[in-house]
């Protein structure tokens, strides 16, 4: 096993990896940017190295600076987390070139799965269904017209180097094709440095189901069941659960077997996720993409299987064999994850960076919280808005939902806006409770959703609380001063005045 692991990431996933390393007796080295001075992951790690200014390009995406930190720390392995450099074959290769282990699959597997057209071909050759579409890149506009007409509209135009819901466009009819080609190519070139695009048939109102796989260097591989990731806003996942309310034993076995075929076809030897689109009517499933890293939502699989995916990932990276067989694996109960973001549902989900004034996290039976924040932490404007992942497990789906409701009601994040209240509404929605939804569910519902309101009594009590606060601080109001020294002691007064000055 490794002696020391450098974690090339930040936020909750860096904290998650530190915990896995501690459980295995491995020392940890964090990296941090200027904005992350004092961040939870840097504070928790055994060692922490400054790698540059706040913009990710100059810190968490800067390969040389991260490798320098790895050299200085003497780490014998590098864990990339998710996002940032986690799916960069060049980074994986650069880590290996310094004589260290990259905690993930081979650079070849990463590169193949990062190129969507090449991965479609490899997966198709392995006998796994892919969405009908163009076998090669679109070379000419007329070629696009021909292929789209053959497979039938609507179609999706996708960037070969894209993924994660970015660099794609739906085309409903032939007349929209030329403009869509132009826009998708321009967007793909800007975002991924590659304007190769291809065409797929659009699967209408699909469900997004993914299979977790675990493989080692001895060609052993198991699948750990599915995660339901259909609840998305603007193609980005917000809530995930395991198992899926629409996947039965037979479909799970079929999708699991397909995921293992994908994994074997690319000599996969780490944890990874094979994403599928499921047609809710025909129950036909199609390969979408494979994520060659730990997934944000891995904890719901951990909750229903009892496995620790990050320690398993570290073990296979260190050359150990998988310790469990497919027959031994069981999914028990149900788990849900809510991604707690710094965004304000009442202002069209505007980002809400800033200082966490107070924080009360939920707990109790069945609740797990993987967080990257603490009271007093200033959530930086430079990085993605994920604050924390709240996971609820229960013996059944309704019990997991009840526990999640209870946990959301306990959760208090003061100082910045969050989507905690939004999730409380989602968890009351009949379509969610019934398990009847598709990828457009949230976006459709938001068009008719009523904003959170307050009662006349709540308004009066809020006003009263604000007035009490000011009187205790000795500011504001008209009339003869009440004896302010009897209101509270000087220490509290000082705290209140400080709070007031900061506004």
């Amino acid at each position, binding site marked *: 096993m490794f002696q020391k692991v450098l974690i090339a990431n930040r936020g909750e996933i860096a904290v998650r990896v530190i915990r896995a390393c501690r459980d295995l007796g491995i020392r940890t080295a964090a990296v941090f940017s200027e904005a992350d001075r004092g961040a939870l992951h840097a504070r928790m790690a055994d060692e922490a190295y400054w790698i540059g200014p706040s913009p990710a390009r100059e810190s968490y995406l800067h390969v040389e600076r991260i490798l320098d930190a790895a050299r200085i720390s003497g780490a014998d392995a590098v864990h990339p987390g998710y996002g940032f450099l986690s799916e960069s074959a060049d980074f994986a290769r650069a880590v290996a070139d310094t004589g260290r282990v990259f905690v993930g699959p081979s650079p070849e597997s990463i590169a193949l799965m990062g190129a969507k057209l090449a991965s479609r071909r490899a997966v198709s050759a392995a006998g796994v269904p892919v969405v009908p579409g163009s076998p090669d890149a679109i070379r000419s506009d007329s070629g696009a017209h021909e292929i789209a007409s053959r497979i039938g509209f609507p179609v999706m135009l996708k960037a070969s180097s894209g993924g994660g819901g970015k660099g794609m466009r739906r085309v409903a009819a032939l007349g929209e094709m030329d403009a869509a080609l132009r826009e998708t190519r321009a967007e793909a070139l800007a975002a991924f440095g590659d304007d190769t695009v291809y065409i797929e048939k659009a699967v209408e109102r699909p469900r997004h189901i993914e299979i977790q796989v675990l493989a080692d260097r001895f060609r052993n591989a198991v699948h750990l069941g599915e995660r339901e990731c259909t609840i998305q806003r603007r193609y980005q996942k917000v809530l995930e659960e395991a198992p899926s309310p629409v996947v039965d034993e037979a479909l799970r076995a079929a999708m699991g077997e397909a995921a293992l075929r994908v994994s074997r076809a690319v000599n996969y030897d780490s944890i990874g996720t094979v994403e599928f689109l499921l047609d809710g009517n025909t129950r036909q499933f199609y390969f979408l993409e494979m994520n060659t890293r730990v997934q944000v939502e891995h904890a719901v699989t951990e909750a229903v299987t009892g496995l620790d995916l990050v320690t398993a990932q570290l073990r296979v990276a260190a050359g150990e064999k998988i310790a469990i067989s497919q027959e031994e694996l069981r999914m028990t109960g149900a788990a849900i994850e809510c991604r707690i973001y*710094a*965004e304000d549902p*009442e*202002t069209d989900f*505007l*980002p*809400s*960076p*800033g200082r966490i*004034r*107070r924080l009360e996290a939920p707990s109790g039976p069945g609740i797990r919280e993987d967080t990257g924040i603490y009271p007093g932490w200033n959530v930086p*404007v*430079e*990085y*993605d*808005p994920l604050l924390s992942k709240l996971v609820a497990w229960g013996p059944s789906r309704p019990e997991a939902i009840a526990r999640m409701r209870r946990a959301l009601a306990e959760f*208090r994040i*003061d*100082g910045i806006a969050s989507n905690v*209240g939004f999730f*409380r509404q989602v968890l009351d929605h009949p379509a969610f409770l019934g398990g009847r939804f598709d990828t457009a569910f949230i976006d459709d519902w938001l068009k008719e959703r009523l904003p*959170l*309101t*307050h*009662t006349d009594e*709540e*308004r*009066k*009590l*809020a*006003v*009263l*609380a*604000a*007035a*009490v*606060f*000011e*009187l*205790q601080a000795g500011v*504001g*109001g*008209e*009339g*003869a001063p*009440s*004896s302010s020294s*009897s*209101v*509270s002691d000087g220490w*509290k007064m000082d*705290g*209140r005045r400080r*709070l*007031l000055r*900061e*506004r």
Partner: protein
Amino acid sequence: MNSPAGAYRRFLAQAGNDDIDVDIDVGKWPEVRAAISGEVFQLRFFEVASGVYWFTLDGRSLEARLVPDGGGYRVQIGTASLHVRLMDPRRRLRAGSSGESRSRAGIRAPMPGRVVRVLAQEGARVNAGQGVLVLEAMKMQNEIKCPFEGTVAKIHVGEGVSVSAGDILVTVEADA
């Protein structure tokens, strides 16, 4: 209310779109007597932390949580979240006669971020709800919209500039 007048303080509060009169006595803290728009509350506050008050009302266990926000407070009670602004009641007259000061208004940054695109031009007409610039924060691009119809008087920021929450981005002359 039959308490000595000297122990009372008077506020004019704005919560949502409503003006609310508050007469309050905290002379017997943690017990508070207050008349709010004529309704009388007698509550005993337990201060959980600075700005967090726990109390019971008709047997219900409630908590009010305050954070300073834009010259007032963001107050949360249960699932309700509202902005409260307190003023000296003598300012009511002034506030009431300040209609003309609204004719020229600054559109402020709702959060810190970086200006990635300026959409408006000085001297150009803007409609209510029209985007004036794009602000990037937390890897997301957000269009900042003009809340009313008018003419762009001044653009205060350029592309690539970092701004803080509350900074004036664009000044718009509203139609009279």
